[in-house]
């Protein structure tokens, strides 16, 4: 088995729609998705969480607030999974709640 990192990105969200019920449903979706991977014994690491705020250093000492000022999709966080090949890893990425919000999941193999 090889390891793959799943990076999820989410577009900006319509905050005026956020409701208690929706939050409950959303947390459940994340849990179900990770839980499903984990129950197959394929979760290697549930990663670290990144704060959405930070800075970006660019050439010439230019520092901007970011990282998501210039990009439409902000990088959320990531998990590390185990799979036989990238096809299987991609299959496991299905159901990631970031997709429901119009975001994406990037699947990247980890070098041994």
């Amino acid at each position, binding site marked *: 088995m090889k390891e793959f990192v799943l990076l999820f990105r989410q577009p900006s969200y319509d905050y005026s729609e956020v409701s208690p019920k929706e939050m409950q449903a*959303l947390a459940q979706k994340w849990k179900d998705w990770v839980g499903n991977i984990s129950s197959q014994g394929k979760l290697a690491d549930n990663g670290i969480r990144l704060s959405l705020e930070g800075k970006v250093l660019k050439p010439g000492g230019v520092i901007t607030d970011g990282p998501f000022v210039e990009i439409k999709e902000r990088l959320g966080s990531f998990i590390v999974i185990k799979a036989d090949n990238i096809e299987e890893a991609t299959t496991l990425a299905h159901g990631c709640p970031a997709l429901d919000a119009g975001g994406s999941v990037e699947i990247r193999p980890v070098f041994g």
Partner: protein
Amino acid sequence: MEMKEENVLKDLFQREFSKMVAVISKLYGLQHIEIAEDIVSETFLVAAETWGVKGMPENPTAWLYVVAKQKTLYHFRRNKIFDEKVVPALPRDPENHGNTTIPDFSEGNIRDSQLQMLFAVCNPAITSEAQMGLALRILCGFGIDEIAEAFLSKKDTINKRLFRAKDKLRTANIKMEFPPEHEIIPRLDNVLHIIYLLFNEGYYSRTQNHILRKDLCLEAMRLGIMLSEYEKTNLPKTNALIALMCFHASRFDARQSEGNNFILYKHQNPELWDKTLIKQGMRFLELSARGEEISSYHLEAKIACWHCYREDTAEKWEDILQLYDSLLKLNYSPVVALNRIYALYKAEGERAALEEAEGLNMEGSHFYYVLLGELYKNMNREKARASLKKAYALAGTPPEKEEIQKQINGL
């Protein structure tokens, strides 16, 4: 166990959303209320993702406060709103410079901010419908779809209403602060009225969503209790309003049937009445018996209190009749007049009631004809039938029609 954890997030949202929005709005000004809402909403989105993947932190509330604090500072700094607009407007506090610009999520500050937000939102500068909408969103953490359902309106309508209301808060330069001493009473009157309307919206709402209705009532009660915990707003009429809500809420479960229909008072099983809420109501009713003023909340609370005793006694109905008389003098409304006639019927019989009922001009109301049907029942069956048939034609909902049909069949 799993289910429980998810409910924790929903409950946390309902409880903490309003606290955090109030604290952040208090710090940076009510004109930035939408930014405060966005920051808090995003905090919850991150919580949903993070807790879903990593599990709940040990102290979820503290986690939320830390993340919201970071986001707030970051946002206002990044957009220079902070330096250019917020800082010059902040009150100068020489002993505490630097610290006043970080959201303070201490218990005391949360309480003060929420109370001040309540006064800001319940401001007559905006329509009472908009005040209710804002209160539900900003003070009770309801989603737009839930507010729309409660008011039987479209989401779009609610969004526009809230947008205009927030705009008005800005242009009217409404501030988050306690009203000055001499204004507390009239301002509190308006706040109490909005809480009363919110409760009624939940109690009599036409939406079929039982849980939503109950949530509305509970939130109205929570806001009332919040006012009673602050010395300057803990007035007799505040307690009277809370008592009134407790008595009505005590029958919430007893009046709900399996099929989502309402069970009429006379058919309810008193065993299902919530004894704890009735006791709470009695306590607040006692607390309301101070001072000189007898508000409409006092009178309504006493009437509602009588209805917690099932037995019909002469004393009960005579007292209720007097309470309705006083209520009508305070502010006349056709619905109260109609209820008074029912009390008159119970206290003095159908003849006295009929005489007054005929003077009432309520030909558009099915309640009026239901009452006439009841009054004629033992005197003139044909008139009773004719009245109930009119009531049937006017009734708006199937459960009401069903109940009226039952009465026609029972004649």
